[in-house]
């Protein structure tokens, strides 16, 4: 009904994002496939290297999932079952690691453990679990809060002890969210790059994404890169399929009985202890980075901050120049993503589902694959964009688009289309009526898309490594390079850059959160 009455100027606007996606997403993927498809590429699959890396990465990802669940489930239980003061703060705190740039997290762990835990599988798994606590807590907690607590009470009255109640009643009821959360953590850890580059040992922690980056940027071996990309895509798709099959098709729970007050000394201590552990786990790496940025072997110092603009201490370019570059790229990404976000919003409202499906494609394709496709498609011929500086913002905007869709679609679906008709019956011309009904949400989606994409761009490592010139690195690349250098000065400069990156990313995400939670969106 709404589509028929849309203002003439907006009826065909969905074509715009469709063309953008065809041009900057589908065409680069086809171009990559055509360039790399060869017998050499097929031969890569008979070579054991990619399979061995896939197996190693799978093992690492399984361990990361197990540890994330072990830490995340108790926190979810406390945060989504009990009502207590400070609950909101703890929930916000456990979300922080998820939004930090991966190289910053890596630096936090390196700084925290120093020489006690050497680079390798343990450190990689710990860092992955740290980043993904939020995924477990949010997804499992959301389902937990809809469970009817009277089921547990009934089981207890039938003689089940607390452990049996948990394993026989609660855990099966949480199955769908646990499966979903575990799949997300598996995919994240399986295709990890920033963490394994900084914290890995180069052998037991390799991922296909690392093979892909090395094959492209060092060895210039496109067939090997494409083989790794295909295998990664297959594994990711397989995990999605298995996850969908394992989830029971249950009707959505409607019972939301609210959170319990903490009753009894035992419950109170378990809540306090869990919150304390969560706080220590989340804050330690961050505090460690902050400390590293203001300390030296001689004590507390602001030397590393004051030397930020100089190049002498690192010999790999000025950190402040990298910061300026990253901010410029983030701004470009934000503008592009805002335009794309707005166009997707119109596609959602016009019920053009296939445009939304196109926007979700980057979910299944790694950042490096996407960057490689864009590089191949737009580095020669009539559409040579290399000199324009647009390749990184385009890639980052595409990487951010699925997140934009996830954030924006619920707000857009919440808008009652009848508001548009009400505005029309009140005499507003179609364009004004459209703006009255949808303008605020539309503007909010564009702003949120811009902010989210800027945050993604600031922390993105893989595609930026591939697409940026050696002499003009972004901040995450600069951090990774500094960490590969020996000496106190390089490490401390990396810590200073990480603190700045953390601050900007968190500020951006707080602004987006503020926009998204505005009541005018409902």
């Amino acid at each position, binding site marked *: 009904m709404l589509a028929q009455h849309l203002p003439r100027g907006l009826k065909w606007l969905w074509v715009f994002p469709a063309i953008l996606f065809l041009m900057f997403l589908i065409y680069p993927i086809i171009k990559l496939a055509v360039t790399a498809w060869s017998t050499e590429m097929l031969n890569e699959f008979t070579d054991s290297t990619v399979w061995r890396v896939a197996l190693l990465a799978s093992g690492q990802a399984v361990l990361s999932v197990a540890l994330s669940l072990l830490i995340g489930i108790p926190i979810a239980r406390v945060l989504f079952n009990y009502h207590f003061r400070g609950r909101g703060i703890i929930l916000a705190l456990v979300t922080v690691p998820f939004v930090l740039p991966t190289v910053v997290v890596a630096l936090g762990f390196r700084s925290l453990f120093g020489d006690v835990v050497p680079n390798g599988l343990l450190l990689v798994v710990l860092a992955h679990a740290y980043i993904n606590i939020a995924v477990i807590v949010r997804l499992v907690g959301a389902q937990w809060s809809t469970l009817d607590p009277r089921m547990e009470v009934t089981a207890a009255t039938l003689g089940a002890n607390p452990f049996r109640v948990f394993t026989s009643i609660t855990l099966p009821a949480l199955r769908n969210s646990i499966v979903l959360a575990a799949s997300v953590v598996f995919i994240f850890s399986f295709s990890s790059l920033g963490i394994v580059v900084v914290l890995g040992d180069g052998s037991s922690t390799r991922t296909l994404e690392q093979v892909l980056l090395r094959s492209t940027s060092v060895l210039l071996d496109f067939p090997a890169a494409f083989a790794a990309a295909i295998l990664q895509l297959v594994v990711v798709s397989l995990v999605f399929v298995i996850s969908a099959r394992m989830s029971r098709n249950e009707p959505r729970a409607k019972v939301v009985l609210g959170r319990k007050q903490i009753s009894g000394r035992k419950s109170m201590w378990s809540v306090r202890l869990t919150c304390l552990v969560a706080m220590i786990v989340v804050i330690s790496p961050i505090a460690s980075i902050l400390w590293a940025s203001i300390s030296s072997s001689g004590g507390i110092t602001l030397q590393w901050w004051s030397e930020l603009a100089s190049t002498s201490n690192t010999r790999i370019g000025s950190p402040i120049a990298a910061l300026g570059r990253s901010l410029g790229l983030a701004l470009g990404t934000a503008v592009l993503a805002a335009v794309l976000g707005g166009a997707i919003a119109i596609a959602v409202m016009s019920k053009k589902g296939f445009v939304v499906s196109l926007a979700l494609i980057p979910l299944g394709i790694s950042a490096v694959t996407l960057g490689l496709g864009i590089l191949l498609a737009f580095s020669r011929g009539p559409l040579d964009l290399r000199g324009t500086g647009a390749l990184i913002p385009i890639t980052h905007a595409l990487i951010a688009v699925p997140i934009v869709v996830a954030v924006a679609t619920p707000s857009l679906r919440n808008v009652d289309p009848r508001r548009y008709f009400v505005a029309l*019956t009140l005499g507003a011309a179609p364009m004004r009526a459209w703006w009255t009904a949808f303008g605020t949400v539309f503007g909010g989606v564009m702003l949120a898309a811009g902010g989210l994409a800027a945050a993604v761009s600031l922390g993105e490592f893989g595609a930026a490594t591939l697409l940026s010139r050696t002499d003009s690195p972004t901040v995450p690349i600069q951090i990774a390079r500094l960490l590969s250098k020996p000496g106190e000065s390089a490490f401390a400069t990396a810590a200073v850059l990480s603190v700045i990156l953390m601050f900007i990313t968190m500020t951006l995400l707080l602004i987006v959160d503020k926009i998204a939670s505005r009541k005018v969106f409902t």
Partner: protein
Amino acid sequence: MTGLILQVNDLMIGYEEALTPALNFSVGPGEILVVVGDSGCGKSTLLSTLAGVNPPLSGEILLGGKSLSGVPIHKRNIGLVFQEPLLFPHLSLIDNIGYALRSSGESHSAARIRATELLDWVGLSEIAGQKTWQLSGGQAGRIALARAIAAKPNVLLLDEPYSALDPGTRLRLLADVKNLVTREGIPTIHVTHDRSEAELLATRTLTW
């Protein structure tokens, strides 16, 4: 008083198939025609068709003797209130009520004066500074009614506007509607599945 009569001749409504027999009725100034029927019988579709949201399958709709065929929704000056108030959340209560006046080219200050009068009329002047989402269901319903009549519509269409409210609030609001329509002389069509509402409001009833 708008003084116009809404006339419906052999009107068939629906999407692909007709939901109703051919309808013939007219509503004059100050009259309330209550359409009574069960869910799914086409009551809401009738209102959507009169407002111009749905095209009729056949027949004609005349307002003051002129056909509304081809007249877009925003040029019909027909007020429509849905079951939910659907207030514009980013606008103040005054700007919600004054929306139609601004659409018709009235100045901001003129729209504010009229909106303030209406806010007073619906008994909500003391909450003028509140946001739309801070209102109770009854308060939001009153604002929606004030918004619909602010620009003196030629016809007022009410699609079970207060059915989600508690009975006491609903009866008070329906009494407001009856007062208003009689005072302003607006031809009104009210649809409901509740026969007691029909008895309370109707000048005439229509069923099929």
